[in-house]
């Protein structure tokens, strides 16, 4: 009996974060200044990021290959997705430092859960076996169920957690069943092994008809996590009910993790005739349409952004549904970009909402431009990036995903997509209208709490980072695009 050699370096970020999470829990018992917990967590995230960068694909230390009996894989894909996740969690911690005390006293556990959620996500994106994928998924899901319910004084937070949990568990059932059926179809749970087993001839499979069924069930699970119609229903409720810091984090990182895993799974069955791609395409169309339509008449900015994130899941899925190399590249690019812009948008909500509230209505941001012009400018950047106005990165995301769709012969999907972008422009614009063109609501002005409040410098820093990402990834995207290209090339056999 021999122990497997595990390439610990390749999962170094995860290890760092787990250790840091434990230490944070311990420190929570002894440290009085809870802000330092935040700084510590942030430090650990940066360390993990540094480790990731140290292991970047260009260096010899980076060995794309199996980690522990093919359970996980550190490759270009996981590197890019991991970086996006770490950036998201880092930003989330950064904006939390000044705000976490608004909604909880259990600050140590809060940071620990954030870190562990990130661990789960990293595990998911590095996973190369359904088992690790499932475990990663469950880790971050559990952590998020808890984090969603973290706003102690808001009943809606608990309600959101309950809904998220019940439906999440329901979806996990489907997900797991899907894995089981794929296992039944192929006799394998390892992605590489599945690729091998279906490569020669599909008739060789133990139970070929189960593969599409299994994939379909799997899609239910993925669809739930990334909020695809019709598995998206929880999203607005949960995003609205969760503390805004958590919303900001989960709205971006979960999508990155789940989409990356989805891409990996799809890539592993690439040689099989793939009827599910059409399912994905239809879901993409439904998702963006539904998300955009439902967002049109929202009065809560958070809820609106939640629907917006649903719509963006549809766009990303468009790239995935193309089922091509370009599609995967596009989806990855979009994910990275989406991380910055959506995080930024929620971050502005956080900065603009009242300290004693966990929500922001559109009337509350009326006249924001005159009170906090810089914040308004940032929000405008995020809004226009989400609309897809060039040269912001959001535009290129759309360009690439729709390009991939057109390339794959899904022109109809691209058409639906661009029409959706137009519909979406309406509600994003409404935010800018409120900020720049509406007079501040008397009540909001009267309460004074918004006008008087200064945005936390840390939040602003995070927002500036997000805005910079949104702008720079549009103008100077060569490094990212090249990295993505390599990652995707390595992915496909």
């Amino acid at each position, binding site marked *: 009996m021999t122990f497997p050699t595990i390439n610990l370096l390749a999962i170094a970020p995860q290890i760092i974060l787990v250790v840091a999470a434990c230490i944070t829990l311990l420190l929570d018992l002894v440290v009085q200044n809870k802000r330092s917990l935040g700084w510590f967590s942030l430090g650990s995230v940066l360390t993990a990021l540094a480790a990731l960068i140290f292991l970047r694909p260009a260096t010899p230390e980076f060995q794309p290959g199996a980690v522990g009996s093919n359970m996980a894989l550190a490759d270009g894909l996981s590197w890019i997705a991991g970086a996006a996740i770490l950036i998201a969690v880092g930003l989330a911690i950064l904006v939390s430092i000044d705000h976490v005390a608004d909604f909880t006293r259990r600050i140590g556990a809060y940071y620990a859960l954030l870190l562990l959620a990130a661990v789960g996500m990293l595990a998911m994106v590095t996973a190369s076996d359904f088992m690790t994928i499932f475990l990663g998924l469950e880790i971050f899901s559990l952590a998020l169920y808890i984090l969603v319910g973290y706003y102690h004084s808001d009943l809606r937070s608990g309600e959101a957690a309950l809904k998220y949990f*019940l439906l999440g568990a329901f979806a996990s059932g489907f997900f797991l069943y899907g894995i089981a059926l794929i296992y039944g179809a192929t006799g394998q749970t390892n992605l590489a092994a599945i690729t091998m087993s279906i490569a020669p001839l599909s008739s060789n499979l133990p139970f070929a008809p189960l593969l599409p069924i299994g994939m379909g069930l799997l899609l239910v699970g993925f669809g739930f996590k990334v909020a695809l119609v*019709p598995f998206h*229903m929880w999203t*607005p409720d949960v995003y609205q009910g969760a503390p805004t810091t958590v919303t900001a984090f989960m709205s971006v990182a979960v999508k990155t993790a789940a989409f990356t895993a989805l891409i990996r799974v799809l890539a592993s069955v690439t040689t099989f005739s793939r009827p599910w791609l059409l399912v994905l395409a239809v879901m993409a169309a439904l998702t963006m349409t539904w998300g955009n339509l*439902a967002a*049109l008449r929202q009065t809560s900015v958070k809820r609106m952004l939640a629907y917006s994130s649903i719509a963006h899941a549809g766009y990303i899925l468009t790239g995935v549904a193309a089922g091509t190399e370009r599609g995967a590249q596009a989806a990855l690019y979009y994910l990275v970009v989406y991380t910055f812009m959506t995080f930024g948008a929620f971050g502005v909500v956080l900065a603009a909402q009242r300290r004693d509230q966990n929500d922001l209505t559109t009337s509350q941001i009326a006249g924001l431009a005159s009170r906090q012009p810089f914040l308004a400018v940032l929000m405008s950047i995020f809004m226009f990036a989400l609309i897809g106005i060039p040269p912001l990165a959001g535009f290129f995301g759309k360009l690439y995903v729709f390009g991939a769709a057109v390339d794959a012969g899904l022109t109809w999907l691209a058409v639906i997509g661009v029409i959706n972008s137009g519909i979406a422009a309406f509600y994003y614009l409404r935010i800018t209208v409120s900020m720049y063109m509406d007079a501040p609501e008397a009540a909001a002005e009267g309460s004074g709490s918004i006008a008087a409040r200064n945005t936390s410098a840390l939040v602003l820093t995070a927002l500036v980072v997000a805005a910079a990402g949104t702008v720079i990834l549009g103008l100077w995207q060569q490094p990212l695009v090249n990295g993505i290209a390599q990652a995707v090339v390595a992915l496909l056999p």
Partner: protein
Amino acid sequence: MSDYAWLMLLFPAIGLVVISFFGTRLSKGIVGWLASLMVALSFLVAVAVFVQMLGLPVEARGQRVPLWSWMTAGDFHADAALLIDQLSIIMALVVTGVGFLIHVYSIGYMHDDPRFPRFFAYMNLFILMMLVLVLADNYLMLYVGWEGVGLSSYLLIGFWYEKPAAANAGMKAFLVNRVGDLGLLLAIMIIWTSLGTLQFNEVFQRAETLWAVGGTFAVATTLLMLLGATGKSAQIPLFVWLPDAMEGPTPVSALIHAATMVTAGVYLIARSGVLYALAPVSASLAAVIGAATALFAATIALTQVDLKRILAYSTISQLGFMFMAVGVGAYSAGIFHLVTHAFFKALLFLGAGSVMHALDGELDIRKMGNLRAKMPTTNWTFLIGAAALAGIPLFSGFFSKDEILYYDYLYQPLLWLVGTITAFLTAVYAFRAYFMPFWGTERVKKRWDHAHESPRIMTIPLIILAVGAVVVGLIGIPFASWIEPWLEPVFATAHEIKHAEEAAGSDMTKTVLLAIAAIIALSGAFVAYRAFLVSTEWPKRVRASLGGFGTLVENKYRVDELYNAAVVAPLLGLARWFAGPMDQRTIDGAVNGLAGLTGSLGERVRRLQVGQVGIYALSMLFGAVAILIWLAVQ
């Protein structure tokens, strides 16, 4: 001569620019004389060109003066260039000569107007544009002048823009002209599309070889051109603007709406003689239109009581004569009448202006009378003008009108008949317009008491024009015409084409017709004398016997009303329908409706989000089952 001909254009242009930009800072005297001087210089250049041309052999008289390369697009090209030939120099002489006199007259007439400089700027603009029109070397440049005079006409009619009537009249003039211009523009397009050039001589050469007589292109082109000509020359159907144009200052009426601009249509047809020769239908139509207009306008002129309006309808009628001339191919006769008409009609208008000047702007001839006592110079000059208009023998109008009637007779005696009847009517209304103000008794005493002869600066141009109205006829006296051979080279090609169908007239016919014309004119004058001075009851009886028709004529056949009801009102109605039901409600309504629909769809979708876990799970289950069924049947 071609090396300095462009100076003709330069001087009024200088006047225009200087007065536009510095006019308000200069004294009135300087402005007025500067403007007049510029026209005078232009006139002198024209004279110089003319004199030089006289010395040249016939073949060398027509010359192109290229100025600059104007417009090129693909294989289309048009130069800014002048064509100096026998026809254009005659026109230029008339324009600058009469124009100069009217400028001088205006110094006196407009003396008290606060916008004195602006008036002269407009006048110089007009002279410039008119010269461009008549000197143009190609149709496009002619079009520039064509619309340019339209602009100055618009500005000058609406010179007293505070008066709504004047402002409206200006607008009407421009728009009605634009309708005509549309025809000219389309004609130009056909010419270029078909012949590949717009330069006059090239067009005529190519048309002669490429177009069939009576062919589609020739007919279409000339008909459209005819539309343009009727607009500018106030013929049926587009004459309605000219009577209203009398709202402008009287010198303007004299210069633009009598002497020069309105004759542009005649000039155009004469210039395009070759094309009309190729399209006999259009030419005949022009003649018919001319005849109809002449008679029609003459009847209206008989019934009008506003002195300037009488003259206006008279102008329309006389232009009808010119159309009759050019329509039947008697281009020289048309141009001859154009020249004589320029003198006597300008004279009449200036005389009318002088009367107005004396009577504080009074224009109703029923309120005038016995002015000869107060205004001797005006009286005599007006009489000469009226005589020339009426075609009293030995006055210029007699020769030119007779020339036209002669050719019409040759072409179609019916035309001659209409022309002769019109000539009779002309004599009647011309002398009516003379007798009623200047003879008889002073009908409004107070006005009469104030009346006075106009200052010298106004009477001298009157005198010069009166002399002109008498002597200018000499250039075309029957059997010894100078102008006909002079212009012949210009119209030679056209005549050649027409030659086959032309019936030759004899000297005998001509003499007889001459006699008839003389009798007609004199009897017309006599009738006027009897009817309007001696037995004033008589016209009333005639009027009564005419009944409804008389009312119709008095109301100018209600053409304005007809046009309003048939064209303007429906268009405005359509515009309102477009703006309201169509644009705001249908199109924009569709746009907003689509947005609203999307919004309400969003609202419905939003409502589906009921907030209940069971429903959410149901939705998921639904999705799962749908996916599975689809994948299972694959």
